[in-house]
């Protein structure tokens, strides 16, 4: 079983992942084999059980009061940005002039 190039390209588009042609072919084959393997689960007959969507413990995560506990340091975080100016993150133009 192998995923078609079209399937792989669709997943890559959803994942916002640029792949070259070699990667598309390789992932088609590898993902096909991995999905065939996990199919053991897809076809398994399971008794009814609630899905454990919140993690291994059913406990509700604790909540904090909604109040500021530490000063924000935007400059510290923005120093990590590949491109920023005047407190803004720079990206390619998204609206044509």
């Amino acid at each position: 079983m192998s995923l078609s190039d079209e399937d792989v390209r669709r997943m890559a588009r959803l994942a916002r992942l640029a792949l070259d042609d070699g990667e598309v072919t390789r992932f088609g084959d590898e993902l096909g084999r991995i999905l065939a393997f996990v199919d053991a689960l897809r076809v398994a007959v399971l008794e009814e059980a609630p899905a454990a969507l919140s993690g291994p413990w059913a406990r509700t995560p604790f909540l904090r009061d909604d109040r500021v506990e530490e000063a924000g340091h935007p400059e510290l975080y923005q120093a990590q940005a590949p491109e920023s100016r005047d407190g803004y993150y720079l990206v390619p133009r998204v609206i044509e002039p």
Partner: protein
Amino acid sequence: MRGEWHARDVRGLLDALARGEVTPAVLVEHFLERIAEHDPALNCFVTRTAEEARRRAARPLAGALAGIPLAHKDIFCTAGVRTTCASRMLSDFVPPYDATVVRRLDEAGAIVLGKTNMDEFAMGSSNETSVFGPVRNPWDPERVPGGSSGGSAAAVAAGLVPAASGTDTGGSVRQPAAFCGLSGLKPTYGRLSRYGMIAFASSLDQAGFLARTAEDLARLLVVTAGADARDATSSPEAVVDYPAALEAPIRGRTIGVVKEFRDAGLDPRVARLADEALAVLERCGARLVDVSLPRLGLAVPIYYILAPAECSANLARYDGVRYGHRAHDVASLEELYARSRGEGFGPEVKRRIMIGTYVLSHGYYDAYYLKAERARALLQKDFLRVLAEVDVLAGPTTPTVAFRIGEKNDDPLTMYLNDIYTNAVNLAGLPALSIPMGFVDGLPAGLQLIGAPFAEAPLLSVAHRYQQATEWHRARPPRFA
């Protein structure tokens, strides 16, 4: 004194410090020399923090681990020190804050000597997916140290640090501990804060430690465990005095021998070592009981649906805008995202993002993701049922000893199956550890012990009793003795 300190475990070094036989500064220089001498051959360290370590050693230190040199897996954020996750995506990332595990060890007086190599974003079982290249196993440099915490494991095994942090999403502390002849602990999900630990699969990720002995693991755990307001999934469950609980009697404890741990490609020589280890525990006074986890065979399929699904969601944050790698010469925002991610991530990370995207996509979500979550709940129920009858479950940590570098690179599935005994424990959220149980052709093998939720104390005490009765944990790789 050269040539001696690296042969001691954390407990031995604390004793020597307390008696004034050595100072933190001497220990720091000794281990930095070891790193300078041996790391070029092993590739354990991604970043060394020698100057900061020297400055810290010169100051008065207090705490339960005062003066003990350590290394952190390069997945833990360290304020002002580059944190890469062994990925091109984060090759220049310098976090402005410390992970809670890092901060608590700092408050306990430990001294960090550097950040260790790992599989990229903790995705791998061999340390071969690192952008910095593979780590070599100190027992045989042609073999992998295991992964994803391979740099931490190899560093402790080679005596470059007495202990190191790791993370375990599907076996990433226990499997390298087994491959490198160490003791490695993955605590219960929620026992340690995940704050500042770069996320891979948030419902499975848990910080852990690699050290020589169960006793050392208890000392590391007691200063790091406990609730953290910065991680809402950390547990308010009371922290036990784990070192004090080590001497609890093993007599009368029941150990469940999991039938299904004998299936699926288990090397008969590893099986024999596990039998011998169980016999030792029985001689120590434990009672062995056969138990069965009939759905264990589904664990790897469940894991390779859920972990990639969570990975694809968590890694969506790397977009080339706020931090991390950014592609140049792009024409649109869409292209900026896709090319930054395409260039920044390596093949295994891309593979998992693609699987995760697939199982979460329209038309497949119910069949794969929701079904896997239901199966996970059933698997956890199975574990809790048997753990209501026995104190600890036991079996081999891995089906084989360390494999050769490159041996499993061509087939991701074969690599995934290496974690067949460890994945299930993360799915069930349970604590588990691996301790050395002997050798196959000169390569170490590990015994895995699994406990009930938040029952780290009995787990560590059974392991400690085993280590009082055996010498496997004292073995050193000859060329790094």
